[in-house]
């Protein structure tokens, strides 16, 4: 299997190649080097654990965008059975960069919706690199309203660089589509659980992310702007941004799951397998499924009115400001 290693994983790659070579050498031969292999495997594990426990925000950004990272449809296939995909916004077209449909998670019927990136050039283009047009957001809302009418919880998976910045998207009202989703999700009468599985790219991510429970995978990111975009605004010189500025911007934006938990924006972090979700998609999917089921269990007893009121309070308290008493000034 050809694996894709990130720059900072080079020492891991070297060791793993060595192990594979040793395995090939010993294959069918008498020489017993299993002891040596075991020793190296233990070393790889330690190395990986070291590297992944101290990832910088920029390194996490790269893991979150890793080409092997499981996408929405991977998780849907791993945690549900009988997924029935539903298509189209009934207005303009079907946007393949957002997928959604009905399925069961351990016998529990749910509506699952998520951004979908593509694997391989052809599918990536088909999925528009996970950047939705307005019709994608309108499809998502249509499915959520369907779930509401039949009292099914809504699960959303967030994984997008952002909403598509193109002429067609503007012509069809990208801003309006996102705004309407934010507004309508705030009053949906069924539980909404959102999980950031990779990249949470600004408004395009939030547009399916107004939720009663919001989780992030350990190495996922969620930000108002990409590190590249932030660096371009702050440090662009002579029309060029140095790639050395991206790590700086990633750190400044405080976009990691750990940051967002410390800000109390998210409810919890879902731990990833050692080396990232793509090293063990099945194990990752099981954990995600556990968090979803636990949340539904907590939320299902609440009346729609209570659910909506609590969702409103969750949003309403977000903000960093101080207020001097008016009397002190007047």
């Amino acid at each position: 299997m050809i694996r894709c290693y990130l720059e900072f994983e080079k020492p891991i790659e070297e060791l793993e190649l060595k192990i594979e070579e040793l395995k090939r050498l010993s294959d069918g031969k008498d020489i017993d080097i299993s002891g040596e292999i075991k020793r190296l495997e233990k070393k790889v594990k330690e190395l990986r654990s070291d590297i992944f426990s101290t990832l910088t925000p920029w390194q996490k950004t790269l893991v979150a965008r890793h080409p092997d990272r499981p996408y929405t449809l991977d998780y849907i296939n791993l945690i549900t059975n009988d997924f029935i995909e539903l298509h189209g916004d009934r207005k303009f077209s079907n946007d393949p960069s957002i997928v959604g449909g009905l399925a069961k998670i351990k016998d529990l019927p749910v509506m699952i919706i998520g951004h979908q990136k593509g694997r391989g050039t052809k599918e990536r283009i088909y999925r528009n690199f996970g950047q939705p047009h307005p019709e994608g957001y309108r499809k998502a809302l249509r499915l959520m309203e369907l779930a509401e009418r039949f009292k099914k919880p809504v699960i959303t998976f967030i994984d997008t660089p952002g909403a598509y910045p193109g002429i067609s998207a503007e012509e069809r009202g990208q801003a309006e589509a996102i705004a309407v989703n934010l507004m309508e999700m705030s009053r949906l009468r069924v539980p909404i659980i959102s999980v950031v599985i990779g990249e949470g790219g600004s408004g395009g991510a939030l547009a399916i992310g107004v939720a009663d429970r919001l989780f992030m995978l350990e190495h996922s990111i969620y930000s108002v702007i990409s590190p590249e975009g932030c660096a371009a605004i702050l440090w662009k010189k002579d029309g060029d941004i140095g790639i050395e500025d991206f790590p700086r911007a990633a750190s400044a934006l405080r976009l990691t799951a750990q940051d967002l938990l410390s800000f109390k924006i998210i409810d919890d972090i879902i731990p990833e397998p050692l080396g990232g979700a793509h090293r063990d998609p099945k194990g990752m999917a099981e954990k995600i499924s556990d968090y979803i089921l636990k949340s539904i269990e907590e939320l299902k007893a609440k009346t729609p009115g209570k659910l909506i009121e609590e969702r409103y309070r969750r949003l309403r308290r977000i903000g960093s400001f101080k207020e001097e008493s008016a009397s002190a000034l007047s």
Partner: protein
Amino acid sequence: MPWFKKTKDIKTERKVKIPEGLWVKCDSCREIVYKKEIDKNLKVCPKCNYHFRISARERLKLLVDEGSFTELDVNLETGNPLGFKDTLSYEDRIKENQKKSGLKEAVISGDAFIKGYPVSLVIMDFSFMGGSMGSVVGEKISRAAEHALEKKQPLITVSSSGGARMQEGIFSLMQMAKVSAAIRRLKDNGILYISLLSDPTFGGVSASFAMLGDIIIAEPKSLIGFAGPRVIEQTMKQPLPENFQRAEFLLEHGLIDMVVERKNLKDTFAKLFELLL
């Protein structure tokens, strides 16, 4: 080689010195226009009808009955939740903008009367950090919406913004959901919300409250959209169509109700109130 060498004659320079800001170049038609003429014309270019950006205070004067405005939530001040620092710390950046604009934040809000109709009013000011929406802007808009609901009076917002405020990161992003949720409550309770879009309205502001008006009005030629034109040009790698993201373009695409000239705004609001309330 230039034919003539530029010589600096300080004496003459002093003699012909023109007071600064007497003439203005129109952002739209590039004509040089006498500033006083523009000021007299509600900051609208007499040559091409381009509506210049105006400050929140100037906007207030144009829209509400004289002396009827009571400002609310004056004392909100943003924190620096990310500990953000570029060349300046975010705190200093705010101070710099406060000094430059004479405002505490990118938005003013309060109660006012428009031709006798009581309204809750929110006006953004582009000169304060590009009218960007951070925690304070989001909080003031949410409070204004809640206040409108409480007093059962319409909410009017006037937007002029580049979008969410990067310096507050995820806190800014979440303001989009917060204000949209507050707007939803108005709709649930039969409170009218009119959104006026002025040049420019983009990003996290257009993708939240600004595009949620029961009625959406834009000033002529205002640039309005989700992604900025430069970003789109980079993605598309082709020149943008003429008039792209101008108010008239949005009208043509069914995204706003009407384009109204500055001088007619107050009457338009009053007419709408008369018909709806």
